[in-house]
């Protein structure tokens, strides 16, 4: 097994980053060793020390997005956060707007709401940012309650014009919910620039452990709760507390996970988000340059759009699932299929075949990219 890890080259970082920074692993172990009590429940010193460690992690998460610490809630993952946001904002007969690049973690909760009387519209994302915003604006009705969109597609990497959409939503007094699964830790996101609710995973670009996510609000829109229970506060009331983070954190939180997430944020803060973006983009450019003249490889790229560092591609004549298995058998970890984003694949014209996704992290080296591209070029030479 150890030999396998040594031989492995991992490019599936859009699903979850691997490896994790050493300090993330260290802090996870440390949490099990010295932060073993339940934070925010008891009052003994052991619980208070754990609560202090959780607060420090929460503070780091808040600072990364320029948010208030009280409005920074821990969730299990980005999907969990998006469900809390989408199901929390809807009211009877509400209308929601989303885009044609969304992950199922956005479109499925929205579609589920449509069975309970809500309606929704899907705006077309275009290469031209102003056209995308115009498409969204044209769908707004007096009943529109929220615009929910990804900040970057997990299939094409396209970055959406978050600031422009935020300005539109502010003008129309509509809640703007951003799915930052692929953007957090890669592009600068500031909750004070018009994003009302930001949802993200902890285990992707923030380099935290799986089982962590964030729901961050600017406090301007009221969200109903969809999960209620023990919070360690207002315990004599039958009603859920109205203050955050307690309102959205019923039940014991993933304490080792959130403490380690704090270490992940320390890591990216030290490296610098711009530097991470630049380094990973450099690896994507190597990948493109080495494969762009290979007629048996289709790269789904467009030089006219801004993207996060990930690339979808296909090998001629085989499905993306087969291609990913072929690569796996040779030690390369990449994800094939629809990436839980059928809307994006419909748009890309790859709904039948899916795509293989190349998604480097800051830990990947150019040599690893060359090994992958050499393998692909050698393999496709055998194809007619």
């Amino acid at each position, binding site marked *: 097994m150890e030999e396998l890890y040594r031989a492995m080259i991992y490019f599936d970082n859009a699903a979850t980053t691997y490896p994790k920074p050493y300090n993330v692993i260290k802090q996870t172990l440390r949490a099990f060793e010295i932060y073993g009590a339940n934070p*925010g429940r008891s009052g003994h010193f052991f619980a208070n020390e754990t*609560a*202090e460690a*959780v607060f420090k992690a929460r503070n780091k998460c808040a600072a990364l997005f320029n948010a208030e610490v009280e409005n920074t809630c821990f969730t299990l993952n980005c999907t969990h956060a998006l469900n809390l946001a989408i199901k929390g904002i809807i009211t009877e007969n509400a209308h929601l707007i989303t885009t044609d690049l969304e992950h199922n973690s956005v479109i499925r909760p929205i579609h589920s709401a449509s069975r309970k009387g809500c309606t929704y519209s899907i705006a077309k994302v275009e290469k031209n940012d102003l056209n995308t915003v115009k498409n969204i604006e044209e769908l707004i009705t007096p009943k529109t309650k929220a615009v929910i969109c990804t900040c970057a597609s997990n299939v094409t990497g396209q970055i959406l014009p978050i600031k422009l959409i935020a300005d539109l939503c502010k003008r129309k007094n509509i809640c703007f919910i951003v799915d930052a699964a692929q953007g957090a830790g890669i592009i600068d996101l500031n909750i004070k620039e018009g994003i009302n609710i930001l949802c993200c995973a902890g285990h992707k670009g923030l380099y935290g452990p799986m089982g962590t996510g964030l729901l961050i609000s600017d406090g301007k829109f009221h969200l109903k709760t969809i999960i209620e229970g023990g919070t360690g506060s207002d315990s004599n009331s039958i009603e859920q507390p109205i203050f955050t983070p307690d309102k959205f954190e019923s039940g014991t939180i993933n304490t080792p996970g959130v403490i380690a997430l704090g270490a992940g944020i320390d890591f990216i803060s030290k490296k610098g988000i711009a530097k991470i973006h630049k380094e990973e983009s450099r690896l994507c450019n190597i990948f493109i340059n080495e494969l762009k003249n290979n007629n048996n490889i289709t790269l789904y790229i467009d030089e006219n759009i801004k993207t996060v560092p990930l690339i979808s591609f296909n090998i001629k004549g085989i499905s993306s699932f087969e291609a990913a298995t072929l690569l796996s058998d040779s030690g390369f970890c990449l994800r094939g299929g629809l990436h839980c984003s059928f809307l994006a694949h419909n748009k890309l014209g790859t709904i039948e075949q899916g795509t293989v996704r190349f998604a480097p992290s800051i830990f990947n080296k150019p040599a690893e990219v060359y090994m992958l591209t050499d393998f692909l070029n050698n393999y496709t030479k055998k194809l007619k």
Partner: protein
Amino acid sequence: MYIIALSNMTQASKAQFYLNRMRIKNRIERIKSPNKSCGYGLRVYEDPYRICDILSDINIKCISITTK
């Protein structure tokens, strides 16, 4: 000594973080809140009204002050 009641653990931690930076001695305690529920508060040893004033700088609202 005084106990300043706050709404929850996050508020208490935020308050403690701020007061520690100002070298104002304090301790987080689990308390029975003014509405007779579970809550968190800060044990402080200086003028609690002055401390509540300081905490208002970071948007922390003191729910009540009890003398111990």
